């Protein structure tokens, strides 16, 4: 039996072991649909058993989206319901086996990739959408639901899911919650700490807990026993320590989220978008301030992009540049638009959402007139219909994938005070703004580890010297946890470790991640 090298759970008291064929046999006996729920390349102990072709599929789970992190897990489990998650976790807890929960595997810090050969627990088959209450707007669903499907479900019923990120076609809501994903609606609806109403979680010892959610057998039993009427998830519930907040952003280190209740606002009937062009960062700041003042409550998103990024979208973007007939699209016109020409332009995408299109149009009109007359913008485009609005968003959402196609990218997601963005960008000599993508050599896809370390040090020290955050949105995973000790005080880290020990005394959940290794 191999001990996992280099993995210490935070308490350092126990060492974890990888799964064996015996464990696989146990799982075969307790899980349903075993041909689906169990994916492994472990051979039978006596050498018998069918040769399976699981190599390719296992690789998919063992590798992250950026292709930076590679695990060596031999066993992927895909439970079909909460009860199966519970039996898996309690078994692993009993037997000191490490587990890495995984959702859509779209994370950018390697949080869902095992460090070595921990079991990968995929939530993808927990994908039922249960209910959307038409009065409270609270949507209850399983953690493995794909974000896009939740959007479609909510839209059909006249509601809007308050979380939207570029990976929504693949990412799952459980993963979003575990990483406290931000996204383009963060500005308007706040983060998940504000919109998640309830949760069902499975603790590392197998216990199932419900926080302000009424779907699940133990809640039903409790209700029956105590004669309590079930009444669903509520927006207001002020009863005791709000434990669900610990799980939001815990990156799978405290337990597994299996169900979610999220509050959805009404679907706005009126949406508008404008793509604006400024010739300096000062003007960009001016536009942002004016947007908040003039558009007020209907402002729903502000995205800033720079010239370098849009150039890469034009050269490496897929189906962004042409319509079905091969003609020049919006991006071409944006890059060709007249500007003052003093320096490289900066671009903003501004979106509004509201319930009254006349009201929204007149606000947008006044806002744009004011900007144009005060010369805060050189030029701009206002969407005239849904097609143009979708094209504007397509350009924005193509930024990351296009840059990734241009060469090996060193990615950073940082928070700094807004006025300091451009100074940070110049110091780092990079593409600038919050999502910093550094492509040292176009066309080169090999990651240079020493170069990566060098760049990382420059970026983080710049950010930290301005009291910014080294991870605005993407989380810590296995890429940033070592920095945690540089930016949090010893007492803070100590309390975090204690919380971890309370929930996961044997340290089986996502070992080696999130908190710094030596604690």
């Amino acid at each position, binding site marked *: 039996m191999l001990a996992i090298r280099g993995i210490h759970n935070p308490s350092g008291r126990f060492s974890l072991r990888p799964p064996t064929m015996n464990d696989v046999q146990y799982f075969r006996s307790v899980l349903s649909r075993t041909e689906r729920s169990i994916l492994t390349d472990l051979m039978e102990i006596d050498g018998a058993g069918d040769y399976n072709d699981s190599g390719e599929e296992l690789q998919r789970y063992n590798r992250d989206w950026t292709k930076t992190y590679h695990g060596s897990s031999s066993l992927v489990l895909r439970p079909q319901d909460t009860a199966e998650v519970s039996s898996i976790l309690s078994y692993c807890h009993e037997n000191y086996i490490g587990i890495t929960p995984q959702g859509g595997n779209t994370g950018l810090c390697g949080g869902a990739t095992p460090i070595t050969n921990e079991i990968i627990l995929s939530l993808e088959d927990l994908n039922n959408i249960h209910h959307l209450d038409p009065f409270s707007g609270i949507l209850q669903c399983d953690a493995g639901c794909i974000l896009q499907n939740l959007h479609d479900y909510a839209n059909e019923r006249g509601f809007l899911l308050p979380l939207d990120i570029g990976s929504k076609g693949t990412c799952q809501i459980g993963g979003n919650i575990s990483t406290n994903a931000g996204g383009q609606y963060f500005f308007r609806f706040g983060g998940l700490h504000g919109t998640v109403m309830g949760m069902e979680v499975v603790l590392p010892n197998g216990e199932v807990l419900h926080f302000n959610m009424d779907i699940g057998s133990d809640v039903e039993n409790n209700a029956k026993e105590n004669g309590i009427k079930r009444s669903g998830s509520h927006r207001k519930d002020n009863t005791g320590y709000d434990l669900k907040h610990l799980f939001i952003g815990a990156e799978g280190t405290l337990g597994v989220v299996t169900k979610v209740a999220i509050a959805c606002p009404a679907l706005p009937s009126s949406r508008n978008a404008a793509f604006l062009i400024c010739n300096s960062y000062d003007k960009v700041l001016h536009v942002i301030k004016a947007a908040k003042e003039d558009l007020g409550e209907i402002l729903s998103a502000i995205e800033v992009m720079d010239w370098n990024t849009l150039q890469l979208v034009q050269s490496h973007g897929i189906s962004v540049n042409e319509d079905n007939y091969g*003609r020049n699209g919006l991006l071409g016109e944006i890059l060709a*638009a007249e500007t003052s020409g003093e320096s490289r332009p900066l671009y903003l995408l501004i979106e509004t959402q509201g319930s009254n299109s006349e009201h929204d149009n007149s606000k947008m009109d006044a806002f744009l007139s004011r900007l144009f007359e005060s010369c805060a913008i050189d*030029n701009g485009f206002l969407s*005239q*219909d*849904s097609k143009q609005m979708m094209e504007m968003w397509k350009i924005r959402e193509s930024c990351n994938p296009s840059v990734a196609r241009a060469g090996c990218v060193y990615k950073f997601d940082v928070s700094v005070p807004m006025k300091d963005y451009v100074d940070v960008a110049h110091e780092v000599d990079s593409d600038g703004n919050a999502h910093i993508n550094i492509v040292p050599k176009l066309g080169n896809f090999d990651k240079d580890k020493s170069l990566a370390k060098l760049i990382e040090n420059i970026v983080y020290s710049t950010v930290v010297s301005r009291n910014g955050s080294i991870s605005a949105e993407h989380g810590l995973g296995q890429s940033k946890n070592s920095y945690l000790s540089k930016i949090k005080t010893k007492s803070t880290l100590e309390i975090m470790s204690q919380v971890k020990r309370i929930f996961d005394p044997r340290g089986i959940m996502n070992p080696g991640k999130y908190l710094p290794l030596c604690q």
Partner: protein
Amino acid sequence: MKILVPIKRVIDYAIKIRVDPTKGAHGVQLNNVKMSMNPFCEIAIEEAIRIKESAAKAKKDAAEVVAVSIGPKQCGETIRTALAMGADRGIHIETKGDVRGDYIDLQPWGIARLLKGVVEKEENVDLVLLGKQSIDSDCGQTGPLLAGFLNSPQATFAAKVTMEDDGAFSVERETDTGTETIKLNPGHSPAVITCDLRLNTPRYPTMPNIMKAKKKPVQIISLEDMAKELGLDLDDVLKPRNEVVEVYEPPPRKEGEMVASVDELIGKLKEKGLVA
């Protein structure tokens, strides 16, 4: 040179249409639904502006592009979009609340009669460019009816329009069997051309043009007044020639079936009689 472009305000093409089955023929929900310019009308405006621009380049007489729309107050926004794209002025024939601004009350026959009146009132219109059809009614009748009323040469489903030196229009049309080229010679009456998808890609209005558009003149006249001015019987204009019998949503797409193996797939295909 004068080009008239009738444009229609319809439910935005990307919106999912909701039907209230209790409302019969009026079942399509219009409340609080995003409306935009009919995509084919956008293409017509774009073509008109291109003709204007090439006339300017060839140093011919300045061409004028006039956008016309019939419908409720909000049609004014649709006209502003046309002006922001480059049209010179607009005419808004405004309907009141009791007239539904869509294919139920404003039907091709009535619209074509009104447009005939506008063409004659404007005088010296060389070309009328329309979208081939609107995406709400999909009738495709307004252009041909108008050409009939005006006794005009017409070409529908235009994929390419070229203006010749003698003032004639050479039009390539898309048909099921291939492309057909027609030459239209406007004489006393303007040429009537309806535009298809492949004709052009409409431009995006830029900020300077959007600002300029606010100052361009738009004549607003009520439907009653316009009918009176043109000597038309309003009831005759609004009388429906097409009767909407029923409106319903298409049946929902059936869920696909998952199969576990190639053999199972073949079995299912045989079951459904799709393979021998």
